[in-house]
């Protein structure tokens, strides 16, 4: 889901100036009364791996803030426009990195393309003789998966509504523990097996322990921004790899389609669980668990001595962008890209130092599903790189379009539907139409 967000980070002034950033997202600024936009309905990216722990933390807080009162609206517009492209790139880079990790693993480590059973959420097998039966089984698998997701999301909303914060925090910590230790241990083991590298247990223990412990600290407490982002990308990739391995083929595609429909519905319908979660968080004026969101917020400090007629000059005042990152927990949220507008100080006659946070937030669930799509394309495309690349470009274009719509509509939007639709269309068309054409051309060394 994409929303505009501006948050106040006054209480975190000290933290922001140091290199360690608090894992908590700053509380939203009080200028919320400006324009409480409809916030997201981000569909939760529910479902975690095999052991049934699911994080349905989603719904990053979306606060729509029209900026500091007194700022000329045209200036605001220009600022939004000027930084819109930067935010798109700030999302392109982590999404691309996650996909690269997933595709590289899929292409080199055999483990993730071998079939070794299925998740309990997809109980119906696809090893059936007839096509109709297979299709039916995959649809049933999808229904079960989606209903599990819906139930968990509603459970999360209820927990949040009745203020069971400790329960939610414990849940998040458990799931990120499992991800950071167990899944990365398995991943490391498989990579070592693939390259036939021997590693003794003490070294292995030390490596996994350090990796996991630093990850827990970065994600749930404080850590450098880049490290937090890197851990987020890694756990999204790990989760996507688990899905690629354990989801049967047709079920995976149907699930991808269904989850983007669910995302659309949950974000845009008034009674969607995600929307309710966000509205509750807005009423209480607190951030929704930032754990499941990738954030690349930048903090701008703008100082202004006094109002002068050329208050447009506020734009040219020196500012220090500081990177701040919200904490994010395990995966699970459907994406919320959020774009924050920087409010400009416009109060006449005062010395004003204001910190504003503007950044983009994308839920980890989006990372996961994008990577699942591209990874599945890489795994099943019969060694074809064209399909993978086509899906990659399609997803990036979908993300770009979604961000453009966000800039136009200025309300929470689901980030999955457009990208996943493009990705699916391009996967099937490239695999069936483009691949034979390009193969024949390459064989005869013809160039178009």
């Amino acid at each position, binding site marked *: 889901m994409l929303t505009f967000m501006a948050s106040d980070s006054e209480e975190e002034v000290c933290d922001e100036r140091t290199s360690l950033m608090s894992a908590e997202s700053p509380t939203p600024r009080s200028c919320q009364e400006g324009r409480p936009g409809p916030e997201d309905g981000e569909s939760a990216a529910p479902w975690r791996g095999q052991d049934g722990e699911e994080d349905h933390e989603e719904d990053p807080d979306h606060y729509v803030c029209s900026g500091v009162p007194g700022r000329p609206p045209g200036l605001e517009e220009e600022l939004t426009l000027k930084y*819109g492209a930067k935010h798109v790139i700030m999302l392109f880079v982590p999404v691309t990195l996650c996909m690269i990790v997933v595709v590289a693993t899929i292409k080199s480590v055999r483990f993730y393309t071998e079939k070794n059973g299925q998740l309990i959420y997809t109980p119906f097998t696809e090893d059936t003789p007839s096509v109709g039966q297979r299709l039916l089984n995959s649809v049933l698998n999808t229904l079960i998966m989606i209903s599990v997701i819906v139930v968990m999301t509603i459970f999360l909303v209820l927990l949040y509504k009745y203020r069971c914060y400790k329960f939610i925090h414990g849940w998040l910590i458990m799931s990120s523990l499992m991800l950071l230790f167990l899944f990365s241990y398995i991943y490391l083991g498989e990579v070592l097996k693939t390259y036939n590298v021997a590693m003794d247990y003490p070294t292995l223990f030390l490596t996994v322990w350090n990796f996991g412990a630093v990850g827990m600290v970065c994600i749930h407490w404080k850590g450098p921004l880049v490290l937090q982002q890197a851990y987020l990308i890694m756990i999204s990739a790990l989760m996507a790899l688990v899905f690629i391995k354990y989801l049967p083929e047709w079920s995976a595609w149907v699930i991808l389609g269904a989850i983007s429909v669910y995302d659309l519905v949950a974000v845009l319908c008034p009674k969607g669980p995600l929307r309710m979660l966000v509205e509750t968080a807005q009423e209480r004026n607190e951030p929704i668990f930032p754990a499941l969101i990738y954030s690349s917020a930048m903090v701008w400090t703008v100082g202004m001595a006094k109002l002068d007629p050329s208050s447009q000059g506020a734009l040219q005042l020196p500012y220090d962008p500081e990177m701040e990152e919200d904490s994010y927990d395990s995966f699970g949220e459907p994406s919320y890209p959020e774009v924050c507008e920087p409010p400009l100080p416009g109060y006449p006659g005062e010395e004003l130092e204001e910190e504003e946070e503007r950044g983009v937030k994308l839920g980890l669930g989006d990372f996961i599903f994008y990577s699942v799509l591209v990874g599945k394309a890489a795994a099943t495309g019969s060694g074809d790189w*064209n399909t993978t690349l086509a899906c990659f470009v399609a997803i990036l274009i979908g993300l770009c379009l979604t961000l453009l719509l966000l*800039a136009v509509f200025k309300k929470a939007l689901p980030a999955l539907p457009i990208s996943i639709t493009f990705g699916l269309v391009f996967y099937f068309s490239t695999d069936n139409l483009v691949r034979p054409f390009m193969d024949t051309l390459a064989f005869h*060394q*013809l*160039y178009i």
Partner: protein
Amino acid sequence: MTAAVFFGCAFIAFGPALALYIFTIATEPLRIIFLIIGAFFWLVSLLLSSLVWFLAGTITENKDGPVQKYLLMFGVLVSVFIQEVFRFGYYKILKAKRPSFPPLALRRRGYGFQTFSSLCSFIKASEGLKNISADETALSMRLLAYVSGLGFGIMSGVFSFVNTLSDSLGPGTVGIHGDSPQFFLVSAFMTLVIIMLHLFWGIVFFDGCEKKKWYALLLVLLTHLLVSTLTFINPHYGISLVSAYIIMVLMGIWAFFAAGGSCRSLKLCLLCQDKDFLLFSQRSR
């Protein structure tokens, strides 16, 4: 085979494009976005042409023999047409959307593009461009022509060559059945020339559209058709590859002048004497 061939061919084919990307596009988010949109347009054109080829194949009921070869040639020609149509479509969209496209500011700054497009001094140009891009908020149509041409070229080159490249890593012997042993090398050079040609075609095409010089569009289409049909005579690489490079050089010269370069600015740039010129245009080196 093996890693040497893989890396060698990869850098031959994609080295210049990568350098252009790193020095001129990677620093500006807007340009990256337009590059990816250009790549997407090329991809859609490829999809359409594959569909046409596939339908033609099903209509002729997939008979074997020379029919397949003719079908392939037909597919290639149709694909070239569709690519140029999509290039025109991209131009129309950029022209229509530019005034209100959210990420773009509304100022036009075309002067930065002259040195920018000069081939021989692209490194110096990128330095100058870096200074411009610090405060540049607008994208001129010339810059968009460059970016879109590069986007088309990169996508075209990648799609043509990446499968061949991944095969070059694996075990195998080239030309064991009597084919040319220079398969990979020639493919790499051909990919390079295609990428650069797309770049120049983009610049010339957009310039022709802007100045309503329709013969430029026709010439772009004709040269594209020429280059593609010349590859039909592969593996007689001498003719196809050399003529493709000659066409590339000619298109490059045309693109240089179309983008606003001149012999004088080129000379000044090469002799590093363009400080006054830059100063006059209010840019720093």
